[in-house]
């Protein structure tokens, strides 16, 4: 098991190293940031001094090693635009995204898996058919449109919920959180629904397909032949067997939503990282872009690593493979 962890960890490190090269080169290739940082009427001397100060006169490989060296020390550089450390900039936005995404992905998973298992267990009932119809809707309606409709309905027409912003926050562990206050919670509801809808539909389909397949296997037949009750079969057999695909998709969804919650954050003026990165791309704020992409890569690698560990914990076959 320890060997497995170490092996996966080394894999993660390699992936991160490769990612850092790709990201660095990719971003370096776009545009020239100097024009943004320096006023057009600056003298040649100021221009040269600024370029030297930003390290842009050094060869590419040297810039890369400087960059990686700084990264490892937790120094992601300063934003060209805001002129504050990038880490502070992103760190200030991350909790907002984190709480929004976690709320929506968790809700979508718990609700979607329950509904999906029901729909797969009793596929011919009217409730199952309703659930499936709703899931088709969740798939086919564009997210930005749902967001606008939600705002129109619940914020503008009914006036039940606020249309944007984070609302009141409380600071825990030095970080402001919305979901811990009632006002903050009311702000999080609409964007979370908006973000969750597609994932809910996907989880429903995934859980339903898994349930239908598993319920027809000999494992379930054999359990029934032993007189085991349906509720025990669902809890002990089905939930266990279905957890593997669910956890896989949960990890992927968590990562991609954290990275790309842009549309929802924009519609609901949610001050998360998604909005920040869009703004940074527009003005070619290179350190922010690089740091953000590295962070996203790090997130994915961490999530994958965790998912692998969870697999090893719950599935004895993976554990056996890990030992071998």
């Amino acid at each position, binding site marked *: 098991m320890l060997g497995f962890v170490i092996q996966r960890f080394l894999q993660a490190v390699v992936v991160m190293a490769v990612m850092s090269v790709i990201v660095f080169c990719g971003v370096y290739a776009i545009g020239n940031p100097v024009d943004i940082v320096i006023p057009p009427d600056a003298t040649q001397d100021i221009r040269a001094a600024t370029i030297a100060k930003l390290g842009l006169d050094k060869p590419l490989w040297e810039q890369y090693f400087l960059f990686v060296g700084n990264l490892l020390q937790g120094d992601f550089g300063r934003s060209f635009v805001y002129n504050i450390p990038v880490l502070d900039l992103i760190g200030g936005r991350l909790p907002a995204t984190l709480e929004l995404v976690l709320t929506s992905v968790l809700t979508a998973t718990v609700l979607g898996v329950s509904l999906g298992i029901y729909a797969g267990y009793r596929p011919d009932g009217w409730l199952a058919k309703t659930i499936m119809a709703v899931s088709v809707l969740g798939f086919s309606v564009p997210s930005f449109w749902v967001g606008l409709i939600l705002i129109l309905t619940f914020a503008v027409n009914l006036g039940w919920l606020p249309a944007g912003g984070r609302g009141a926050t409380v600071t825990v562990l030095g970080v402001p959180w919305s979901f811990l206050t009632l006002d903050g919670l009311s702000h999080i509801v609409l964007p979370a629904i908006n973000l969750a809808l597609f994932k809910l539909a996907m989880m429903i389909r995934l859980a339903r397909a898994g349930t239908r397949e598993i319920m027809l296997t000999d494992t379930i037949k054999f359990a029934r032949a032993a007189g085991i009750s349906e509720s025990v079969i669902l809890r002990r057999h089905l939930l266990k*067997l279905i957890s593997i695909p669910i956890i896989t998709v949960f990890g992927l969804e968590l990562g991609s939503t954290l990275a790309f919650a842009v549309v929802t954050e924009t519609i609901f003026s949610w001050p998360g990282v998604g909005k920040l990165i869009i703004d940074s791309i527009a003005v070619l704020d290179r350190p922010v872009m690089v740091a953000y992409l590295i962070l996203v890569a790090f997130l994915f690698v961490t999530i994958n690593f965790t998912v692998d560990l969870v697999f090893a914990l719950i599935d*004895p076959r993976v554990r056996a493979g890990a030992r071998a």
Partner: protein
Amino acid sequence: MSVLDVRDLRTHFFTRAGVVKAVDGVSFTLEKGEILGLVGESGSGKTVTGFSLLGLVDPPGRIVEGSIRLNGKELVGMSDRDLRKRRGREISMVFQDPIATLNPMLTIGQQMRMALEAHGRVGPRAAVTRSEELLAKVGIPSPRARLRSYPHEFSGGMRQRVAIAIALLHSPSVIVADEPTTALDVSIQAQILHTMRDLARETGTALIWISHDLAVVSSLATRLAVMYAGRVVEEGPTAAILRDPRHPYTAGLIASLPAMAEPGTALTQIPGTTPSLLSLPPGCPFAPRCTHATEACTSEPVLERHGTRGWACFHPVGGVPA
């Protein structure tokens, strides 16, 4: 009184393509501790018969007619709840593929305990003791330690032994064994066969041994029921049927056994192929392949009893007894 008495059982599948009459007239009786071999070629309805006995036919299938009396109680029409209480305790089943039957994510001990607790609470100690006892009985070495193992840590043959142990946990009156050795090596087949026969003898459990292989079954079963196209076409003591088959299909099966062939000659085969259950012509389903068939065979023969034996044929081999 027989432990199991099946009369004219019919289980049909109502599919889009039409009604598949997978089981369409199955009758047999099973005495305490007896081993009945249920033989027939692939698709003849053996597995569906087995599932019907446990009330485990999945939609779109259901039992449309007939009677199944288990220890004197009628199972057809019984509520799901009452059926469940009988499964595992009065009747249980072992499946063909031991790789697929056990849950790969639970230990053997957990799965045995679940089966034990299906019929009332059992303390952890008692569960371990009982599970260990049965694993030892089916021939699993160091059973206590093995309770903590997962299925993938066992060979196919050992997994099948575990499945048999689970089926035996509550000492049921009947176990349906659906080709439990087909997926295993030949040498292991024989071991499992003997283990099951000995256990059945020891515990007084009656066995229904399903197989497409008459040679395997006849070495084990005291009685045989031969199935064709969803029907039992002949039933009786194994020795009598082997010596003196009455239904032309049974006769064909026996003639095609390798042991029956003269060395160096080709094996006899029954001409024609198994009919599709979707478009079965009226009358005897075997008639199109039968050398005895006459005009009379356009109506369907029923299984008639003659002493300890029975067959469903208008023109039995050796003539109709007086």
